[in-house]
């Protein structure tokens, strides 16, 4: 089960494991026991903090022979100074490139050779790296993960080559109207905060980011006390903890970086923007500044989102039956200190749809929602959680992220709080946050010439 046949990874014999377990107990602080909420997809789990400050979460999911490892680093574009815009994402590109032990391309080949896959993503305030593979190769996955974390080589030739790749990515993003539009909306909604930073950077900033800058940034943020590793799947918790403690024993902590101080933007009164683009359809987008997912009002906002758009019976579904829209969405995104609640629809009649969305929101605020709607929303969310709970990869990503922005306990409490949300709560948060008077509205239109 340990996959001892793979030659490149360290071999763990039973005696070694016990020895490591003994030492790991001394190295780590074990969190309070968890698992009180039997209904949560996240419980039971084990979380430990290694002596160097690295948080490790392990969740055993034994029903499929799969392991998923998600490494979460507390850095993203919001942390970048203007001259280094794009550096977090640049480092993400270099991460699986190669290490002292593994040449360019070797990490990916090794993981692929056992049937696994790996990838990474950079966001506004987080970067994560994930590897998913058959659980028979758990020790290889952990070894690769630990190697990349500590020994990424930042080869100068590779840095130049990857810069070209990122420039291609910029080009590709600019050709995609969805990305262009969401970037513009985010910039406007979060103006004046570091969250308005451009994740990918610009050709100008990228041309100035050299090996020295990359290494300095990497050394500052890629410290164990700024990281969370979540391991989910068909694994043995104690063995995983012992392996990670051994593999990361020389990983030295650093000063914990923090986000630049900023003021959370206050919603403006009826801000409205009309933007022309090379598109064929019109889009109507409403953006609201809301508290984070795990705040006190988060659960009611989650229910509101589902009542508006969670299924075919949801309120925005009426726009379909009225023949007004081609597609629609309602999202609730949450970062460290702020959240965004967005509603958007593709349509050929933007002014009618804008008015109808306002009417739908006003109706919730003025008349409230029904008990049945709240019950349906809870049922849909519950099934969604059960579906999430089947996938080791989703679980690893969610667990590392929730631990990063708050704690897994808060996330579990969120599930309990969802069950307690009343129709009055929904009406209250709608009035307070998802209120047309506090909306920033974007109308995206095809250019006249098109």
């Amino acid at each position, binding site marked *: 089960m340990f996959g001892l046949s793979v030659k490149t990874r360290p071999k763990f014999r039973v005696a070694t494991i016990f020895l490591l377990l003994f030492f790991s107990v001394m190295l780590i602080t074990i969190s309070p026991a968890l698992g009180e909420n039997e209904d949560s997809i996240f419980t039971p789990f084990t979380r430990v903090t290694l002596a160097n400050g690295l948080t490790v979460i392990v969740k055993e999911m034994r*029903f*499929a022979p*799969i392991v998923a490892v998600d490494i979460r680093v507390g850095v993203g574009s919001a942390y970048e100074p203007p001259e280094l815009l794009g550096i977090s994402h640049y480092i993400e590109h270099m991460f*699986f490139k190669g290490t002292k032990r593994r040449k*360019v*391309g070797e990490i*990916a*080949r090794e993981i*692929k*050779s*056992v*049937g*696994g*896959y*790996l*990838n990474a993503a950079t966001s506004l305030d987080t970067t994560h790296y994930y590897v*998913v*593979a*058959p659980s028979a190769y758990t020790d290889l996955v952990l070894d690769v993960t630990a190697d990349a974390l500590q020994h990424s080589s930042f080869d100068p030739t590779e840095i*130049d*080559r990857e810069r*070209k*790749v*990122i*420039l*291609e*990515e910029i*080009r*590709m993003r*600019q*050709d*995609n*109207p*969805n990305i262009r539009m969401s970037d513009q909306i985010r910039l406007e909604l979060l103006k004046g905060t570091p969250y308005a930073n451009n994740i990918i950077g610009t050709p100008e900033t990228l041309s100035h980011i050299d090996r020295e800058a990359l290494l300095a940034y990497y050394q500052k943020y890629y410290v164990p006390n700024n990281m969370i590793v979540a391991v989910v799947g068909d694994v043995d918790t104690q063995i995983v903890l012992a392996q990670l403690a051994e593999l990361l024993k020389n990983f030295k902590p650093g000063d914990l970086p923090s986000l630049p101080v900023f003021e959370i933007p206050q919603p403006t009164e009826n801000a409205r923007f009309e933007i022309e683009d090379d*598109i*064929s*359809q019109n889009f109507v987008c409403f953006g609201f500044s809301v508290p984070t997912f795990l705040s006190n009002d988060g659960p009611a906002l989650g229910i509101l989102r589902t009542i508006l758009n*969670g*299924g*075919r*019976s949801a309120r925005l*579904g009426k726009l*379909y*039956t009225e*023949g007004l829209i*081609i*597609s629609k969405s309602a999202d609730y995104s949450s970062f460290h200190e702020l959240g965004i609640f967005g509603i958007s629809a593709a349509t050929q009649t933007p002014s009618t749809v804008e008015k109808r969305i306002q009417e739908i929101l006003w109706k919730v605020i003025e008349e409230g929602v029904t008990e*049945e709607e709240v*019950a*349906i929303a809870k*049922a*849909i*969310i*519950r*099934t*969604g959680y*059960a*579906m999430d709970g*089947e*996938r080791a990869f989703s679980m690893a990503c969610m667990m590392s992220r929730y631990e990063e922005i708050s704690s897994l306990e808060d996330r579990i409490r969120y599930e309990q709080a969802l069950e307690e949300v009343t129709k009055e709560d929904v009406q209250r948060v709608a009035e307070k946050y998802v209120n047309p008077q506090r909306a920033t509205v974007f109308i995206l239109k095809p250019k006249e010439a098109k």
Partner: protein
Amino acid sequence: MRSVWIKRLCGLLNHKKQKRFSLVLGILILLMILPGYLLASGGEEVRPSPASLTANVIKKVFPNGLTLLIKPNYDHELIAVNLYARMGTLYEAPDQIGISTLMQRCLLYGGTTSREPNIIYRGLENVGAHWNSGSGADCGNVWMTVTKPGFYRALDFYFDLILHPQFVEWDVEIGKREGIEKLKGINDYPLNTVSILFSQGFYGEHPYGRLTIGSEETIASLTREDLVAWHKKIYIPNNMVFTVVGNVDPEEVITEFEKAFGQMKKGRLPKQSSQSIPILEENIVFYQPRDVGGAYLVLGYPAPSYLHKDAPVMEVLNTILGSGGMGNRLYSELRDKRGLAYAIGSSYQQMVGPSLITAIMITAPENFQAAREGIVTEFKRFCEEPVSAVELENTKKWIKGTFAMGQETTAAQGRLLGVYEILGHGYDYPDKYLSLIDAVTPEDIQRVAKKYFNHYVLAVLAPEGTIGE
């Protein structure tokens, strides 16, 4: 635990006589499998051999031809129900292309003969069901995932949708409008445009060259009566495969299906298009200039069809070439080593009819020639040199690992069983598939490459002047 497995095994053999034979059969089976299993498991519980992915699937074919596949899985509370039926562009008349997509959409949203749309929506969503439908080029589906407590309530609404959709006039008109508006937005995305350009060039008049959503003309011409007639033609029991995966009692499920579909009459299966695809006698390039930042390339060759004996060989080749993310040849050579692209990969589109393998790349316009040559070189390498034993072994491991990981969820297990069954491999193909992949040799790959990689079709969307003369 033992009695559950005996029930499942009996269901597989002969459901109606299950009670009578269960004891005798159970003892016989246990005698056959127990010693070996005890060695492997330490005697904890009786489970089917882990080597088999479909051993606990119960297949029930009703006298009218309807196929029901049940895979009990008690690890979760979830139950996934999936219906697959042959439909899609391969079966559609040229002037009705898009009818399957429209029918699948209107089936869900127009209500049934006895229930208003909103009653259906709320009925399903009251128990938390997630549900949807769709159609591709070869088949379509209607799926629902729900937790155990609401399963039978949701199943009643799900059956009603499939059996008695009303296709109300006003909703059909909305569906048509939605389709036409969606078409307008498709070309806002350069990757869509270049893919369409490629498909039209490669497939010519064959229906695979048309979008499954249809064209503005075909969608506009469809009527409620067309949908009713198409539903009658497609939703016949011998064209339907249902899969039920999850926390269910197979006996109860079979009873429910018998009640709902037992009286339906067999019909004539829909006919596939007999249209052939253009014969490639030289490389063909389709170029559409557009003011975009990058050059978008799709370069493809013909490939074995879904049921062809060489399909597993091409699958291995495709994995080596460019599927599966970082680490494949296209990624390593053109992105990692030469920094030519951000996005690059390959795809083997196994269709029931004529199939293809494509490489897709987005590069800077000034790199266009290098990208094109690089892609062709990687295809031709398979003809010129055999793949190494190590590369082949690693690829097989990747395919097997990915295959196993692809069945992680209840819904995915249902999809896999349903697609294999409806498209002709049989639900138990996963077990054969892995041994077919194992049997692929370097010589097989070279033989198949030489057979198919002769002339390519290339579609390019890039700024004016990118590809020269």
